[in-house]
Each structure stands twice: as C-alpha cells, then as structure tokens.
C-alpha cells in the first residue's frame, strides 16, 4: 500500500487508473483490438470461418487495381458531396421556419423531426412504395394529375436514383440538424434583435448580420457530424436501390459487406475496410486542423 501511495504521488495518473480501467477494458476489447485484428486479417486470405494463409500486401495491391473498389469509393464521396450541403442547409432552413413566432410552430417542429425517430427499414420501405415505377405513389400522382405519360424509373437511372437516396436521407435525418440549429437559435440574445430594430435594420439584415454569424460555431459541429454520418452511408442504399442500377449507387461499405459476407472473402473485405478507415482518419484530421486554425 505504501508503495502504491508513493508511486501515486510520483505518477498521479495511477490514482485515476482504477476509475478508468473498466471503460478502458471494454474500449480495448471492442474497439482497439478489432482494428488490429482487422489489419491482421487483411494480410491473409481469409474465408468466413478460417485463415487460408498469409498473403502479405496482396489484398492491398489487388484493391488498388480493383475498379469496383474505386467506383464504390467514388460513390460514397459523391454521396458525401451531395448530401452534406443539402442536409446542413435543409436543417438550417427548417430551424429558421420553425423558430418563427407563428401559429402551429410546435406542429412544424414535430412534423420536421418525426421521420428521424423511424428506423431505416421503415423509411426505406416508404421510399420504395413512393418511388416504385408501376404502382408507386409519385408516378401515380404525376400520371393522374399532371398529365405525365411515360413511366419514370426513379430507381432505374443513376441520376434519379441518387436523387431518391439523397431525398430519402434528407427527409429522414434533417430533423436532427434542425434540433441542433434550433437550440443554437434559442441562445442568441433577444437584445441583439431589439437593438437592430431600433437601428432600423430590416428582417433580412437581421438574418444576415445577426442570426447567421451567431450560428457559425454550431454549423461547424453540424457539418462535421454530417460528413462522418454521410461517409458511413449503407443501409438506405442497400434497402432502396440495392446499389443499382448496375453498381452506380453502390457505396464502399456495401462493397465491403458483399465481399466479406456474400463472396466469403473476409481478408479482402478487411483490407478495404482498413483503407477506408485510414481515409476517414485523414478526413477527420483535416477537419480538426481547419477548426483549430479557425479558433486561433
């Protein structure tokens, strides 16, 4: 005991250790260990049940030459680029709308947030019913009320399929960004607006010079969260288009999943997952760097 006390005096961190240990153990077993294990697997030919032998960097070399890898990585990037601005700006606009002092404000907030509580399976099924070509709701409306004659294949053409996926994600998740923005809007002191009004600023000027600048910090947070969320895109694509038409909307996570579990090639799947992990680490580091520079 004495020894512990003496050591603890010298190294204060020992005192914290017992408190940190339970969490650290769980963290190491379920997060750190799998990362190394995944890297280890990526150096082997590995089926779902057994290790078929060491292949060195073969999986990685194969990956660099695999057009399907680059295509699906490109698709994921495409989704990030399409969805991040849409959903961030969408959240902002909805928050501004729901923050108006008008009747039905509570209704708007609830209506905008509601889809977020649904599971991905539910929203995907709704989207499929909405967009399916021969008996879908949207084509039905277009054909009955707007005189559209041809059948539009919403999920059968790449551009339209991208639109559907981004739309689905927007409708589903925009409520979360809206709530973050709403919280930030409540934090802007009322006195700013009062002062502006006294000075004769119009509503538009108030928005441009008070509201938006005050929302800058939260916009960083929202964008950061949105980019990470968008990179992980998988479930809604899998359930709505299955990655199609062809492989044109197949994101990298889906390709990793198919390679590992459908084509029984865990080693190659692990290699791609590890490469994707590195890419995400780099993206996060750039973000942290940019933010730090901003704050200085």
């Amino acid at each position: 005991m004495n020894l512990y006390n003496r050591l603890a005096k010298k190294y204060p961190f020992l005192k914290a250790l017992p408190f940190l240990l339970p969490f650290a153990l769980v963290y190491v077993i379920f997060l750190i260990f799998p990362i190394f294990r995944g890297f280890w697997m990526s150096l082997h030919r590995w089926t779902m049940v057994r290790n078929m032998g060491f292949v060195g960097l073969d999986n990685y070399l194969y990956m660099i030459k695999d057009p399907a890898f680059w295509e699906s990585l490109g698709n994921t990037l495409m989704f990030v680029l399409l969805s991040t601005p849409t959903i961030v700006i969408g959240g902002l606009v909805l928050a501004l709308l729901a923050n108006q002092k008008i009747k039905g404000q509570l209704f708007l907030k609830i209506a905008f947030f509601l889809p977020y509580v649904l599971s991905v399976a539910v929203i995907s099924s709704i989207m499929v019913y909405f967009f399916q070509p021969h008996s879908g709701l949207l084509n039905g409306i277009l054909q009955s009320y707007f005189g559209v004659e041809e059948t539009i294949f919403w999920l059968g053409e790449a551009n339209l399929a991208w639109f559907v996926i981004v739309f689905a994600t927007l409708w589903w998740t925009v409520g979360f960004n809206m709530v973050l923005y709403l919280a930030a809007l409540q934090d802007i002191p009322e006195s700013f607006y009062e002062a502006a009004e006294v000075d004769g600023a119009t509503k538009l000027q108030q928005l441009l010079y008070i509201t938006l600048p005050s929302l800058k910090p939260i916009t960083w947070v929202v964008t950061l969260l949105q980019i990470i969320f968008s990179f992980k895109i998988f479930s809604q694509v899998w359930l709505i288009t299955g990655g199609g038409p062809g492989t044109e909307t197949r994101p990298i996570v889906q390709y990793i999943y198919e390679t590992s579990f459908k084509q029984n090639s865990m080693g190659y799947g692990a290699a791609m997952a590890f490469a994707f992990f590195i890419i995400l680490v780099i993206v996060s580091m750039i973000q942290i760097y940019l933010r730090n520079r901003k704050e200085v």
Partner: protein
Amino acid sequence: MKKALFLVVLVAVMVGLTSNVMAEAVTVEYWNLFGGGDAEFMDAIVEEFNAAHDDINVDVTRLEWEEYYTKLKTATASGNGPDIAISHVTRVKELADEGLVVPIDELGESVGINWDEYNSNILNGAEIDGQVYAVPLDTHPLVYYYNKDLLAEADLLAEDGTPKIEGSFKDFLAKLQADSSAKYPMTNWTKLTAEGHYRVWWSLYNQLDGSPVVSDGEVTLDKAKAVEAINYMKDLYNKEYSPLHSEYMENVNLFRNGEAASLLTGVWITGTLEATEGLDFGVIPMPQVFDNQSVWGDSHTLVIPYARNEDEEKQKAALTFAKWATDHGELWAKAGHIPSKTTVTEKEEFKNMPYRMDYVKAADYVTFDSAGSYTWGIRTEMATALSKVWNDQITAEEAVDEVVTAVERLISR
C-alpha cells in the same frame, strides 16, 4: 414420523422420475431462416413433432434470413452451432467444403431414413463426392402463374383451364398483349440488381443445356449460350411483354390486381395468391422456351452442423426430426413448396390441395446452380451485368465477358 417418512419417499420418487425424464429427453437445437408464412408453418411442424415424441424436444431458433448464413457459419466454426439447421441446397457444397456439415448417409439410415424415397433430382443436389450431406425438405422452382379471366379474353385459355401456348412463348405473350385488357402480358421481379434477373437467365441458359458457370476451380461458362439467353430476355423487356424495374411485391401486386396477365415467380407465392379475393388463377411449370424444360430453383434442406464433441444420440434425434418433417411434407406444402418425398406427393392430403399438383412436376426440371462458395458471387455479378444490359450500357456479349472476368477474380482471391 410416518408422515415425514412418507413425504421423504414421495419427494425422492418425484425427483427420481423427473430426472429420469430429463435424462431421456434429448434437446435438439434447430436453426432456421424462415420468415412470414413459412415460419408459421414450420413452427406448427415442430410443435406437432414435439407433441408426438416424448424423448425428443426440438428447440427452434428463427434467424433473420439476411444474416443467417453468416451466423450459422461463424457459430459452427467456433463450436456453438445448432444440432440441426436449414440450409439451401445450393449452400450445402459451400458448407461441406468448409467442413461445417457432416455426411449423413449411414446415420440417416440408422434412424430409418430411406434415401430412395426422396426426389432424386433434389437429393443429387445434396450429394457431394457420393456422400449425402443434407435431408431435402422441399424444392421451390420458378413457376408460371396466369390469370384465367385475362387469358380467356385473348382466347388463350384451353377447356381444361390451362394456357394455350401453341406457337412460341413470345407469340403467346404477343397475343395476350394485343387481345386482353391487361396492361402487361407478364410480370417478373425486374428491379435492377435484383436476383430475379439471374433466376430467369439461369433457367433459359439451362434450357439451352448451358454448362455450369464454374467447375473444378475454372470458369466454364458457355458464352454463346449465355448471350442467347440474355438476348431473349432483353427482347421480352424491349417489346414490353414484361415491365422493367418492378420491385418484388410490386410485381406480385400487378398480377394480383389484374394489371398483369401472368406472373413468373417462385412457388412460395401460392399461399398469397390463394388469399387474394376475386383472383381466378392457374399455375404451370415455367414454359419451355428452348431445348428443354430446365428451370431455376432452390431447395430447403436439413443439415447436421459439425460439432467438436460429436454426440451421436443428438445427431440421431436431429435426424429423427428431419425424417418426421419430410415424411409429413404435406404440412410444409401448405406454404406452397413442393415436398421432397415421392411418398408425400402421392398422399391424398397433398393431392387434394389446390394448385400444388399443377406444378409438382417442376421439381424434376430444376437445375441447381450450386458452385460451392462462389454461388453467391456468381449470382451477384450476373445480376449486376444483366441490369447494365437492360439499361443499354453494355451489350449481352460485353456483359458475359464482364461476368467471366469478375468470376475469375472471385476464384483467384
């Protein structure tokens, strides 16, 4: 004192009895992947089996179909597998190659299974190097459902209620398109990337006597025949005999509400169609388009996963269940599937079920596409390449080349 003694004896006897029963009843862990209607019928079978057997207790675990094989394989590999499990016959080779299921010829015979009673076409699919690895439960091929009212409008319904396909199948569809009030002559599962495309392609390719896609670790696809099958399908969609891009339930519903005059899909939908009010339909095996009647189909089988500590008593109990379930195939046929035993299809209970006798022959036409662990990869690659052809991005020849390259890569990996 006497009373106390009596109590002690009573308790002792009771404990003895219960522990005796416990010792005798073997619990069999049984995993399956059924959902929807299938699951209910399977639960009923297990319940009846348990009621009829005091010495065996089958304990069902139902798993999500999407994750089923991942869980079955990893659990078995780590020694936590079930005692008996459902596997598609096209997966049996993959499981056997990985050493995850055990051969059951003799074990089966020891509990009274007579392999000759099973439909030989399905049983062949479960045989690897002369060893049987699975007890076939059913088969579920593609079949052709047709709306009798709509066929009659185009004068295509024979006296006995079957379709009059006198010329080619496409002539039949053309007449249906021209002379019936249906919006589409036919519908099948055509969502791009869906496996539905592959199933029809596989049927047509085998009607041309196409060779297996992979044999002995080499790609052995017959390119010319593969192209011919693709072009046939492409023409179906170009002439709008069947609408492209339909989701699975959408295509079933087009048929149910009379917008499509016929439906090409698996037998599992029979129950759903029977429950549709005002739908007068019939069903036949998939029409012959080319040289023979081959058709895509798969089959549910029961396999005994490998266990580190083999317990022969458990394996026998598991196979007793497999035998009972297949002997009572008429219970399972309620779900629409074709029973695997000829002794079952001859039973009155089965013969009296509507529709089933109309497609029972299809079991003999099924060509399984088992290619070991490559089966899934081949299916995905082919479905993807086909959807590019439908979207006019590549030609049929290019699609076949793409598939060959992709499968070669699959093998090399």
